């Protein structure tokens, strides 16, 4: 038994418990630790030594030293410049940098899992905890220049997003063509699976919140709903085409929240703005009320951003933590417990995936609804 094998970053995905059980018994699997460039050789050596000695106490020490659950979890929910598949195999994604001297484009494989430095057209680069840094001629990191570069690489999350776009386009263009082909007829096949969801968005989300103006915002609401939902589900798939934690990434939710904010305020009518800047209170309360109203306007998308981010990230952290229990307790006996809980969490997460997409869309519709609502008699 090579338990040290458990402690490597072979957890290519947080749900591959079965794969973990299989791989953990494979000889030689335990020798690599990725993304820890400096420690790599040293750890591999010591692992070899421990294998030779096969002493339980040193094993424990070794594990103590190597396995850091929080680091592993954070690494798994974070974005990455290459897409880890299994063992040593990963898909190298393109790195695109915008520097003060122009664009720079190369494969992330050149970093060799962070071991090597890449000499680009303008600078020499190193990768450190998924951050690309500019390296000086003497090998030290140039923080000044590092701050100036903008990393717009096609990362794992971006790839996952592109995948979701392809899926969405395939699904909905085929459904749309089904509508054209079977005009006026009852839905059939895949169309009848999608139609109730579209009707759900229309009748349960758009119409109650937007009233008769719903039609204008339907494309936006439907896109938001399906985009978030599909990405939530892709995030739950533990192996290759899935596994990217896109909807649990703050950058993604920020963009969605900001877009909602823009759509809401661009469509805000006179009574909406009047409500903010000329609220229905005595004039001397304006210095208090107007800032409060403005905070209200800003906090709405902020709540959306944080809600989606926190819900999805929390779900992933729980699942990963449950898997990590096996390695923390260092016994396979805990695995059935972990697997049981992970199964439970996954089913729950499926619900959450839908629920969060629904809530995001629902609140977006609500915010737009308040912005476009006709003024009431008393206001």
């Amino acid at each position, binding site marked *: 038994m090579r338990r040290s094998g458990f402690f490597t970053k072979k957890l290519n995905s947080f749900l591959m418990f079965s794969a973990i059980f299989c791989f953990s018994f494979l000889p030689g699997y335990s020798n690599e630790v990725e993304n820890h460039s400096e420690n790599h050789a040293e750890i591999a050596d010591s692992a070899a030594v421990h294998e030779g000695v096969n002493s339980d106490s040193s094993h424990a020490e070794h594990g103590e030293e190597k396995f850091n659950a929080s680091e592993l979890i954070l690494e798994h929910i974070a974005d990455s410049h290459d897409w880890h598949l299994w063992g040593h195999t990963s898909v190298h994604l393109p790195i695109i940098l915008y520097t003060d001297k122009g664009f720079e484009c190369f494969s992330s494989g050149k970093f060799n899992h962070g071991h090597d430095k890449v000499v680009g057209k303008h600078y020499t680069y190193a990768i450190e905890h998924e951050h690309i840094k500019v390296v000086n001629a003497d090998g030290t990191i140039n923080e000044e220049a590092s701050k100036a570069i903008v990393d717009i690489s096609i990362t794992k999350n*971006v790839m996952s997003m592109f995948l979701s776009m392809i899926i969405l386009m395939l699904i909905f*263009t085929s459904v749309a063509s089904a509508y*054209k082909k079977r005009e*006026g007829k009852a839905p059939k096949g895949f169309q009848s699976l999608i139609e109730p969801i579209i009707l759900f968005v*229309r009748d349960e989300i758009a119409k109650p919140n937007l009233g008769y103006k719903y039609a204008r915002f339907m494309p936006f609401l439907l896109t938001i709903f399906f985009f978030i939902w599909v990405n939530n589900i892709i995030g739950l798939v533990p192996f290759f085409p899935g596994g990217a934690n896109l909807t649990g990434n*703050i950058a*993604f939710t920020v*963009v*969605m929240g900001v877009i909602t904010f823009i759509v809401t305020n661009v469509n805000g009518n006179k009574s909406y703005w009047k409500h903010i800047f000329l609220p229905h209170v005595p004039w001397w309360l304006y210095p208090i009320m107007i800032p409060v109203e403005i905070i209200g306007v800003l906090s709405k998308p902020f709540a959306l951003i944080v809600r989606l981010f926190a819900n999805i990230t929390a779900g992933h952290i729980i699942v990963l933590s449950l898997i990590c229990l096996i390695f923390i307790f260092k016994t396979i006996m805990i695995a059935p417990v972990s697997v049981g809980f992970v199964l439970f969490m996954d089913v729950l997460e499926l619900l959450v995936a839908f629920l969060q997409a629904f809530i995001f869309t629902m609140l977006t519709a609500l915010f737009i609804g308040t912005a476009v609502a006709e003024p009431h008699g008393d206001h």
Partner: protein
Amino acid sequence: MDIVTPSLGLVFWTSISFLLLLFLLGKFAWKPIMKALDERERSIEEALSSAEKAKEELARLNNESEQLLKEARAERDLILKEAKQLRDNTIAEAKGLAQVEANKMIEKAKVEIDNQKNAALAEVKNQVATLSIDIAEKVLRKQLEDKSKQENLVADLLKEVKLS
């Protein structure tokens, strides 16, 4: 914290992707889908409302025919009733007339019979009187052919007178 720091690259790609997706899906998916859904809903609604209308029309027609039938029945009943009454009246009237006529005739007949009877009786009385006189004449003639007998008779008669 890395986890709550939005990375510019992902923000950039997400914005582009979402806007692109919104545009593409809006053009190639949502527009035809929503249009088809609306159209289908409208046609369903129309079909339902026309069905409702047809149902109403049918109900109205039914109602009308029912009404007509009812009226016809009432009329028939009325006519029958009237006819019956008329018949009864006629019969009663006829009966009354007949009775009166019969009574009259009976009365007349009685009078006639009485008259006839009286006439007959008078005739008979005359006849009897004539016959009696004839017979009495004949008897008297025969009786009084003889003188003695005449005397006897007178005597008898006288006797009787005395006695009375």
